[in-house]
């Protein structure tokens, strides 16, 4: 009886949360489908906003740029953090505190300060440092660093990495082989979660990219910004498409996790 009550309670909470999250999305989607919606009910139905977007190569280029600028810095950052953590876990555990301190500094930097500082420092520097895309990738590496580091760190702790490394060494594995063959597969799922989180942050960024790259490198967010000034329906359609893309990326990510677990 008590179990049934608890189950019903959980369902109610779940439904409320789902509604809270889905209602804005559903309304945005509905808004993107109608010609005008200024009274209680909309005047008419149209797919014009989507047709226009699908025919606009500029839109798709901006989406590709968004994907590129989301994936590249995170991939670089994850690789660098993993290599650093390999050195810390295997050779100098004492450096862990320093790593933690360095990697959490970006939390303290306000959104707009970072790109302005980067621009001020590197705008006049020789290539490739003054290249806007280069600056953007490096800046995003800094932005996602705390999330990636924390994900890697927590998962290394969760699998008791030093113990597993010792066990692998006793079975004849070298340190590097043990880290990549034993530790890495066991923390991949956790890293994927922090990568998703980092990706959502980069995907939704407007301030940094607008300050650093501006029209040099227009992304989906900047396209959305200009669409908002043209038409509410078109902007809503852009939001829906961006959401579907992030959803697809998340599903692929979680699908990869599940297949890894099965193996």
């Amino acid at each position, binding site marked *: 009886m008590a179990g049934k009550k608890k189950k019903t309670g959980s369902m109610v909470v779940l439904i409320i949360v789902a509604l809270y999250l889905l209602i804005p999305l559903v309304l945005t989607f509905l808004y993107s489908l109608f010609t005008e919606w200024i009274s209680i009910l909309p005047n008419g139905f149209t797919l014009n906003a989507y047709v226009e977007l699908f025919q606009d190569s500029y839109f798709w280029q901006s989406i590709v740029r968004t994907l590129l600028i989301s994936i590249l810095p995170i991939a670089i950052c994850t690789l660098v953090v993993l290599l650093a953590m390999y050195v810390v876990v295997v050779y100098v555990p004492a450096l862990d505190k320093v790593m933690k301190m360095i990697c959490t500094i970006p939390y303290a930097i306000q959104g707009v300060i970072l790109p302005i500082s980067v621009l001020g420092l590197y705008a006049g520097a020789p290539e490739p440092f003054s290249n806007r895309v280069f600056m953007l990738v490096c800046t995003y590496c800094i932005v996602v660093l705390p999330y990636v580091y924390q994900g890697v760190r927590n998962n290394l702790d969760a699998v008791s990495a030093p113990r597993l490394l010792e066990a692998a060494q*006793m*079975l004849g*594995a070298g340190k590097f082989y043990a880290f990549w063959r034993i530790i890495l597969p*066991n923390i991949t799922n956790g890293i994927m979660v922090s990568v998703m989180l980092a990706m959502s942050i980069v995907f939704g960024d407007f301030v940094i990219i607008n300050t650093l790259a501006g029209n040099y490198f227009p992304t989906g967010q900047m396209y959305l910004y200009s669409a908002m000034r043209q038409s509410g329906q078109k902007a809503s359609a852009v939001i829906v498409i961006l959401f579907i893309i992030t959803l697809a990326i998340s599903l692929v990510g979680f699908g990869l996790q599940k297949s890894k677990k099965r193996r």
Partner: protein
Amino acid sequence: MSYIEFQNINKFYGKNQVLKDISLNIEKGQFVTLLGPSGCGKSTLLRCLSGLEEISSGRIIMDGKDITNLEPKDRNIGMVFQHYSLFPNMTVEENIAFGLKMQKKSKEEIKAKVDSAIQIVELEGKEKAYPENLSGGQQQRVALARSIVQQPKVLLLDEPLSAIDAKLRKSLQNSIKQIHKDLGLTCIFVTHDQDEAMVMSDTIHLFHEGRIEQSSDPITMYTSPVSQFAAAFIGNYNILSREQFTSVTGKKIASENGIAIRPETIQIVTDPSEETDYTFDGVIIDNTPKGNVLQYNINVNGVKMKVDVLFRSKVLFENGQKLRLSVADHNCIRI
């Protein structure tokens, strides 16, 4: 020359010296236990032999070869850890096969050896299971199989049973003993549990503050402790200073650091013919049942003494009851 020789091993962590000039020989095929309280250096010595810790000075010789500076993977030593340390992303058979793959054995050989190891640790039917789906005892069996399948020169067991419940521990103790006997392995076992050390070992090395306090077979260790620490740690002895001994028995005794008397060697006298070298009176303070033994705490002239008797019936004597006690001189160990 012994199979394993620790020669003047010292180990420092910063300024803290955890191993103090340890010299120790272990013969091939022996089951040796390093026993001692937490922080005494027993696990550190084991890890130095495995290569997971470097020693600050000294030499380790195994099978006639100096292995002091060899990497763990080059020592051919197997190790079972307290927390199993199984690889979570691998099945039971993959875990067991890992070391053999590192040795680049053929697939057929790996399969045969893994099957044999699974049989030895009685885990048939669990080959495809992941560690998370096994009980603690089963996980430790996998860890054991993973180590023995490589046919190591020495098998190190670092408190492998301390995370396992009492009943299962007994069964695993038997399994480990049987495997040691069947495979003729040289085993070095670390524990802080003196009962476990007694059950498992050919030889016990008792550690205290980075030094070996006493090395002997279990019976000698139990009956003839060489120091106050050994007496207190191993046998739950009554340890009396010379003055306390005189106060209890009314007689003087020659001893440097006191006298140790095992609780079970003190006899409760019911007939004057049972009286031996030292006879004295005491009053029961309380009693503690310890399985098949009942331990009385007895006040003898202001000195608290433990006396063990077999728990044959309910409570034999009442609290507050006066008793006559007797102990033979050869049971009063000078320490």
